[in-house]
């Protein structure tokens, strides 16, 4: 069974139609890249899957492991195994990163009927995974993302993803705002999560990220639909020729 199956998805924000009949199938173990010009609906797709309330789905369906995502609240989607790494992770003053991580992990475990993680187990796990991503103890004590640089915020997203062990990871322009060293750290973190039972959707504007996170399938999105799909070489082709040919496309 497909891990993620999207059929004929239509969505709008206010009266603005953004997704216009999108189809996508991601199987377990696969990494899919979605590329496309600005305004093609890439970020909207990620928000609609995660359940952001501003968007209205007008037609179509999205199934995660056969469960209808669109009928679930955002927290239920997370507990079912969906994770969105935000393009712009927001700051939450007053909520210590440590508290946030523990609350999130335990909320998901509770929703799945699992026991809460003990404090020593939690601390050991966070220490190990944060160290791999170069996230210091001081950052963990601070408010979520408060005073973090752009790169630190993205690494914090990957830390959350690592700790929450989702079935499906959606990375929304995780490469934006990263220098080359930060890009490497983030990519290594993502690659460490590649697994036969886990799928990934990597949304990016540039081919650069895909040198580090090598996709199985590359899709081109335009005007709210996937207009072309191919292997990883498609990304290189786009890098050379640009999106010009697609934005003219009236299909």
């Amino acid at each position, binding site marked *: 069974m497909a891990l993620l199956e999207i059929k004929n998805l239509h969505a709008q924000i206010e009266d603005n139609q953004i997704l216009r009949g999108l189809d996508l199938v991601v199987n377990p173990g696969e990494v899919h890249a979605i590329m496309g010009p600005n305004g093609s609906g890439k970020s909207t797709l990620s928000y609609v899957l*995660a*359940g*952001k*309330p501003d968007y209205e789905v007008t037609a179509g369906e999205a199934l995660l492991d056969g469960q209808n995502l669109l009928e679930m*609240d*955002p*927290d239920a*989607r*997370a*507990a079912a195994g969906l994770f*969105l790494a*935000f393009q712009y*992770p*927001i700051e*939450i*003053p*007053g*909520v210590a990163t440590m*508290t*946030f991580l523990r*609350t*999130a*992990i335990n*909320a*998901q475990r509770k*929703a799945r009927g699992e026991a809460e993680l003990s404090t020593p187990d939690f601390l050991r796990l966070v220490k190990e995974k944060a160290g791999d991503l170069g996230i210091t103890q001081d950052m963990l004590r601070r*408010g979520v993302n408060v005073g973090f640089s752009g790169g630190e915020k993205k690494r914090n997203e990957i830390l*959350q993803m690592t700790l*929450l062990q989702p079935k499906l990871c959606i990375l929304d322009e995780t490469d934006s705002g990263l220098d080359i060293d930060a890009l490497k750290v983030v990519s290594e973190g993502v690659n460490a999560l590649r697994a036969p039972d886990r799928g990934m959707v990597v949304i990016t504007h540039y081919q650069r990220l895909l040198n580090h996170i090598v996709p199985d399938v590359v899709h081109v999105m335009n005007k709210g639909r996937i207009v072309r799909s191919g292997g990883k070489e498609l990304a290189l082709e786009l890098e050379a020729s640009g999106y010009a040919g697609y934005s003219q496309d009236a299909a």
Partner: protein
Amino acid sequence: MNVQPQPIRTAAEQALLALLERRLAGPAVDGPLAGRIGELRRAAHAAFAANGLPHRRVEEWKYTDLRGFLREAAPAATALGISDGASAPSAVAFPGARRILFVDGQLSPAGSDLADLEPGLTVVPLAQAMAVGRGTVEKFGTLAPQRYDGVLALNTAFFGDGLVIQIADGAKIERPLHVAHLVTHDHPVATYTRRLVEVGEGAAFTLVESFEGRSGVPYQVNDALELFVGDTGHMDYVRLQDDSETALHLSTVMVDIGRDAKFHAFGLTTGAIASRVSLYGRFSGTHSHAGIRGVTLLKDRQHADVTLLLDHAVAHCESRELFKTVLFDETRGVFQGKIVVRPDAQKTDGRMMSQALLIGETAEMDNKPELEIFADDVQCGHGATAGALDEDLLFYLKARGLPAKEAEALLIQAFVGEALEFVEEEGLREALIARAERWLNARTG
């Protein structure tokens, strides 16, 4: 014919006047202060007779109409209520603090730990201090504001039991002193308590106060506190107002801050159907600092008013105010803050902020920050915000698996945490944070 204009009085005002007249005719204070206290009482009576309870058309009470909230004058509690039995309320204890208990407005020797007071700390019942009539008690009533304050007038006229607390020059009292107030009566009573606290030169002191009482009883609390922080002194004042959901709570806090001194105040308000705290602060010595902060959590139909008047009478002082109000259901919050900078108070640095989170659909917040500046070389600022929880923050938390209620509770905790973190003493800070969390979990859970 000689016609005296008669103000129209509410039933409660008429009843209060009758009680006031009986009080004036009753036993007077003994000792050297008898004359002055009698004078203050008669003046309070006359002012109340002329002005009555503060109401909407009195500027300082515009948002809190006491005529509306105080419809029946409860008699002052004279006997103890019911402090045993399963339904009897009990007073909070803060770990590490020495507790002195007032039950139904009267000092409870049995519930108070007055043994082995630290060197430099003196705690004397008010009547006893009045009888001696020397020292801190001589300052009784000297911090009262110029303007008529009907609540303080009632306290001055009716006050019964209380305390005089004195910290000797240079004494650093590490253990917080907790004055707990508890109302146990099962019928409406009023309590009128009063305390004077003097922190000597270079001394340090932490005072905690709590107000609680029997659930379901519309009792009335009228408390007044006069604080004197001496030169280079340091005082922390923490108060918890958790009166019963049917009570009326009225407090007046007056503070005089000397030179090179520090005064920090923090209040957590969760109780009473209607409450008002009036805080009058005055810098009388230069280079001092005041930090006044509070958190108010309201539900159902509660009304809570914090009104602040801070007088920068001298130069080179710094003041910081931060008030956070969380309003559920049909509640109403009021913050009125006024900073006055006198002509000589150059180099004043004052900043005042009130922030409200409106959760309930019909909740209301009235913010009235004011600056009155007569000096030309000062830095003063104020701000006020009122709004809902940030949707983007909520979505971020939900997207990580937090159910809506948990996400809301976490964000509200973070919102109030910014003020709570200013409570200096760690044990008290943690106790108040835990209390706020319990309140929020009960409300949002």
